[in-house]
């Protein structure tokens, strides 16, 4: 991939996830990100930002802004999502029971499970009055794979 970075701010609205997707697709295409990586990065960010919009506020501690920083290097995509809501670690959500039968499957927790599984790493930190999620996705370049 071509090295590059993008930093932007989102309003706290589900309608922003459409803009987020559009931005990731354009940024990814411009920096030579493989299509399948664009898809999983887009999906993971969609799920995590949706989660912040829906669950990030409580009482006086509402989310006012969501910051996104994304950086590409040769073989890695690094992302930071930051918000100013209550202390909220989405990774605390219980894992869905994937072995349950259809009638016992619950719809909750699927989004976080997708992000956790499709990214290589996700970390949560509370930094001052803000939540910070750090994501990493490694990218194997097709040409490098063929050569090795």
């Amino acid at each position: 991939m071509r090295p590059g970075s993008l930093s932007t701010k989102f309003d706290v609205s589900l309608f922003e996830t459409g803009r987020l997707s559009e931005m990731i697709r354009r940024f990814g295409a411009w920096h030579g990100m493989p299509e399948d990586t664009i898809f999983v990065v887009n999906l993971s960010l969609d799920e995590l930002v949706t989660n912040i919009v829906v669950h990030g506020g409580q009482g006086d501690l509402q989310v006012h802004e969501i910051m996104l920083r994304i950086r590409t290097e040769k073989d890695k995509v690094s992302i930071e999502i930051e918000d100013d809501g209550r202390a909220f670690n989405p990774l605390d959500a219980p894992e869905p029971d994937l072995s349950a039968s259809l009638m016992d499957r619950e719809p909750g927790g699927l989004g976080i499970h997708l992000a956790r599984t499709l990214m290589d790493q996700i970390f949560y930190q509370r930094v001052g009055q803000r939540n910070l999620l750090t994501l990493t996705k490694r990218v194997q370049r097709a040409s490098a794979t063929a050569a090795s």
Partner: protein
Amino acid sequence: MTIVNLGGDVDSVSASELETRIMSLLDGGVKNLLIDCSHLTYINSAGLRVFLLAAKQLSTEGALAFCGLVPNVRLVFETIGFDRILTIYLDRATALSSMNTAATSAD
């Protein structure tokens, strides 16, 4: 047999529209539903939740199946284990012949 063509992106906003449409089909008495995903390029957990609700509702008296999943959408189904609890066919022709056979033998 009712076939729904689902195309484009299902995100947190369009998922509620999807839910309204699918549920109105079920409320209208549809029992055998095939969702053709050949032109579905993106779906998030909000849309997957709708599939789960519909599958549960049809599981007792009817059938819900999916076909034509593109690789990215198939990856999503597999990541959350939906490939084990939902019926997925490779393409529409396979789905129709299997579902019609099943419907006939159930009569």
